[in-house]
């Protein structure tokens, strides 16, 4: 499988990365070179093999169902959460208008 300019532009749009025509042009051969190379995985016989889901067997834990069970990941830290926001407003994240 190989990608063309239209596909690369579509991928960029899905990835929410603005690209110029010249950038798309340059990315087509680069991505194709990499995709051609990963294509060799098709040679591997994977009959009956389950895709890996956990590299080291582990069970997902549940934390105690209490508020602020761990203060580091709990709530009540609005100022800290907003400290690095590019445009905080009135204690919220500011974004451009989304409703006409």
């Amino acid at each position, binding site marked *: 499988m190989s990608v063309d300019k239209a596909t690369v532009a579509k991928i960029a749009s899905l990835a929410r990365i603005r690209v110029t025509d010249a950038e798309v042009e340059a990315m087509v051969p680069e991505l194709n070179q990499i995709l051609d*190379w*990963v294509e060799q995985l098709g040679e591997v016989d994977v009959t009956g093999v389950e895709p890996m889901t956990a590299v080291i067997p582990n069970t997902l834990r549940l934390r105690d169902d209490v508020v602020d069970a761990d203060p580091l990941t709990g709530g009540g830290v609005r100022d800290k959460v907003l400290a690095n926001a590019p445009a905080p407003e009135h204690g919220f994240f500011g974004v451009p208008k989304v409703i006409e």
Partner: protein
Amino acid sequence: MTELTELTVAAIRKGVAGGDFTAVEVAEAFNANVAAASQLNAFIVATPEKAIEAAQAVDAKRAKGEELGKMGGVPIGMKDLFATNGVQTTAASHMLEGFVPQYESTVSQKLWDAGAGMLGKLNLDQFAMGSSNETSYFGNVISPWRRKDGGNADLAPGGSSGGSSSAVSARLCPAATGTDTGGSIRQPAAFTGITGIKPTYGRCSRWGVVAFASSLDQAGPMARDVTDCAIMLEAMAGFDPKDSTSLDMPVPAWEAALNPDMKGKKVGIPREYRMDGMDPEILKSWDDGIAWLKDAGAEVVDISLPHTKFALPAYYIIAPAEASSNLARYDGVRYGLRDLPEGAGLQDMYAATRADGFGPEVKRRIMIGTYVLSAGFYDAYYNQAQKVRALIARDFEQAWSQCDVILAPTCPSAAFALGDKTSDPLSMYLNDVFAVPASLAGLPAMSVPAGLNSEGLPLGLQIIGKAFDEQGVLNAGLAIEQRAGFTAKPEKWW
């Protein structure tokens, strides 16, 4: 007086505890080396005041007769992928330039709790994506090593932990943190003649580490020798409920149990790692390693890891796929860069922010990841890669019926010159061919210096162990270290 910056972690800790010198003296000596090495560009931000502050705390504890901790009085470099409270954390990206975390990563907090101090935040490949430290927004890191041909070409310190490797080998810090997704601790360690270990996936908490590929990312120490790695790994590892993949297991006393006697141990030599056209000097260092481990009492056995050649292509589907998902968080809303063109809506803001904030290699990987996860391609690429990954893990599982550890080269070459591989992303990726299989299988793996090649550049040997058997890896590493007698260091030119 002892040259303090030549001391290992173990020697610094002992000297501080014994009163031969103070922790503040040590911090001052390393601060001075950091300040004088701006040409290497190993640090994005130096924090001499943090190093001094931590050292004063250790000296005060000593005065009161208190325990100084596993890393008591040892100043270290912190890869700028670990969130540090109040100190800019960038992942070497424009996207996070100026980002000041309001919390501390678990691993860095553990190190400070163990008595270490921070010399600064170390440069790296942008979002840890790269093998030469040429993708940082803050400029290339230069290796302190040079070829002995007198050409003075700037060499790559490896990547992504290139600031860490450059700084440790240049004596700017006795040890540094690294992270390894597909070789990012081991390859830079090999390129710069130092030692680094990636523990079993889940040993070190990922909480507060800027995410690249979450099923692969694992932190580990980089230092000058095996003992120092054992000491520092003990301080970094441990269960963390804040990381859902953290291993709920006690941290073994790796340092105390170090033992270079390999009697009764079997060392596997994977025949698939002997590739066509391999550098004869790499092959020779591998043969040296085999001889050293035999000398240490080990039995050497040939093993097969049949899916080795598929590890790298599988990695370059899985890692970008995870990266495309992880890096979706950089949207210009909650933290980091925002680029809001005049009159733009939300979608335009996302696209403009991400176009400005990410470098070319990061964009390339996000694009590949987006493609392989997109409708219609998911099964052919991502699912197939995860099946191949299962087979690679099974290869190792089967090998453990024949051997206790595996010995292989860390990299297919010595350090290359900066700029050598930047025009061809694929040739850059191929540098991680020997490192990636252990990452995909989540296994502990370490690089130790084996010697210098004919150009005067260091070569590394890699030891891969069973899951949870960091001890076996460290012990084999120590056996090699004692026999390799590697004492070379870069001649100071910076």
